[in-house]
């Protein structure tokens, strides 16, 4: 019994050392990235208006693994004038573009709810793409805390 525990301990320590020695994969990014180039790629130079995007996010998220979000964009959602897509960016996430949602004139409302992962306290940016080459953008700041008692998680 004790022998098993010793073997497991050795393997765990070896694994931890291997992980610490440097990984082939990037560790979770805690650095804020400039997401402007990513926005520009979508807007293709059109300047987004800083209005019309409402983001509901908790001020404090107790766990970055699952943060609820509700996004509302003011729009008649008619055939000629509607939100075509909503993009969610998290500047501290290792992959800042979290998701892209496509809507249309059959949506009725430009309103989305979801749950996202946030790698630490940061600003979330929502970009809305509308018909006629228009864009709206809105920010939301979230304080993300982590567990007081660190967990085994993978054990």
């Amino acid at each position: 019994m004790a022998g098993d525990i010793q073997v497991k301990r050795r393997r765990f320590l070896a694994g931890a050392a291997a992980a610490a020695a440097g990984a082939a994969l990037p560790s979770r990014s805690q650095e804020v990235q400039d997401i402007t180039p990513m926005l520009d790629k979508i807007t293709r130079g059109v300047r987004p208006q800083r209005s019309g995007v409402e983001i509901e996010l908790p001020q404090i998220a107790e766990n970055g693994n699952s943060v609820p979000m509700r996004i509302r964009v003011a729009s008649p959602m008619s055939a000629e004038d509607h939100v075509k897509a909503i993009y969610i960016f998290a500047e501290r996430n290792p992959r800042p573009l979290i998701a892209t949602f496509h809507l249309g004139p059959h949506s009725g409302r430009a309103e989305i709810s979801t749950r996202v992962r946030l790698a630490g306290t940061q600003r979330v940016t929502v970009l809305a793409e509308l018909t006629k080459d228009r864009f709206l953008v809105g920010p939301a700041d979230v304080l993300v805390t982590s567990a007081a008692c660190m967990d085994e998680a993978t054990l």
Partner: protein
Amino acid sequence: MLLGRIQVPPSVRRGEAFEVRILVEHPMETGFRRDMNGQSIPVYIVNKLSCRYAGYEVFSAELGTGMSANPYMAFFAVAESSGEVAVEWSDDRGATGRVTAMLNVT
């Protein structure tokens, strides 16, 4: 087949926007986690989801690793006629899922 849940209102008036709620069972592995032996756990996510109703694709999404595990989404669609609301999704290993709900339009 991947497991999922769908919810639509019990009934809705024609022309009104109604909310579709969807919950999909999936670990949404980011590719950044490591197991006890230091081995990285490969990326494994639902990357596409779409909803069809009344002959239209009323919603679709491209999802990344920044979505929480067991992804949840809610969106709206305009009620046209009574019929099936169908949500389909697929992950980056080719597995697919589909759930439907009957919408009653008055």
